[in-house]
């Protein structure tokens, strides 16, 4: 039976993690795993891995793993509490920073900061593409899927949803 103690533990955990999640949920996944499995014994390691895979596969941000952990631990109420706690602090911070930023963004120093941050961001996006491809491309078919999707999304205006549908069919039909 899950009482307010569990909900409070969920809330405190994710309120703290919210402000540490630089670069998104992936930065704090190991800590979420440690808290859920080793500290609070809410679930087994295998259960956590399954929740993580579902969050990855589902549409929406990967941070949805937090919603799933809350749901697993304390049902719908747990899902709501965990999600709100994870989003609240970073929401306030982001809103405040962008309000301030809009006032200054045409100042020379602000533009220099933007020009400096832009290539760093490109490097990070390229890195996540590489790391994700390395894990997913276990055979020639998967590699071809990555290359084909990249080419179609870069050079054409075709909606990539069609590629994803085709990919899912290829996958279900049995490779990997």
């Amino acid at each position, binding site marked *: 039976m899950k009482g307010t103690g569990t909900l409070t533990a969920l809330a405190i955990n994710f309120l703290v993690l919210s402000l540490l999640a630089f670069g998104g949920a992936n930065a704090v996944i190991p800590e979420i795993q440690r808290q859920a499995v080793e500290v609070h014994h809410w679930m087994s390691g295998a259960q956590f891995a399954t929740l993580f895979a579902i969050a990855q596969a589902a549409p929406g941000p990967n941070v949805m793993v937090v919603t799933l952990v809350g749901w697993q631990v304390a049902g719908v109420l747990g*899902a709501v509490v965990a999600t709100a706690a994870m989003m609240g602090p970073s929401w306030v911070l982001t809103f405040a920073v*962008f309000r301030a930023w809009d006032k200054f963004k045409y100042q020379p120093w602000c533009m220099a900061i933007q020009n*400096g941050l832009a290539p760093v961001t490109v490097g990070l996006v390229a890195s996540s593409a*590489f790391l994700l491809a390395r894990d997913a491309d*276990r055979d020639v078919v998967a590699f071809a899927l990555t290359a084909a999707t990249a080419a179609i999304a870069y050079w054409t205006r*075709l909606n990539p949803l069609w590629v994803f549908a085709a990919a899912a069919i290829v996958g279900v039909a049995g490779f990997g």
Partner: protein
Amino acid sequence: MTAEVQPSRSVPVQSPTLSDLFFHFMLISAVAFGGVLPWARRKLVEERRWLTEREFLDTLALCQFLPGPNIVNLSIAVGARFRGLPGSIAAFLGILGLPCFIVVILGALYSRYGNLPAVGGGLLAVSAAASGMILAMAGKIATPLLQRRPLESAPVIVAVFVAVALLRFPLPWVLLVAAPISIGIGFWRRG
């Protein structure tokens, strides 16, 4: 389907209403398989044209340096830019509401059917396609940067890629080192 996108960029675009923000961020989340950012870029830059390529990149760059998922921060920023506090709430609920719902349904389904091998194969194929989608996005946001400021941008892009993707340095440290250096280059090469 909204596969056809007008190539012309000269059409003036009205600034989005609250329901536009909620609705279109929800549409982004509904189709965003394997990572939301490429789908958000497609919607915001190519389809709705609420942001230019450069505005998207600048907003995303700032989001990288704030805690929280980049796409959630991006929705807050875009909402706030067009409609202030109500706008940021509308976009935020749009991007998160549906995925919260879907993911719990999927969790319930998976605990019943997840052991079928076909499900695992499908998931793997989708993530292969997702990595291609992110690769294309890297190319698209890099293109205007490399055209306009190649000497300043290219070394930073390569250095960050090597540090994060190949050497697997922790992200916070890479950001702490790369950002000041890159901003310094920006100041030095200014004007």
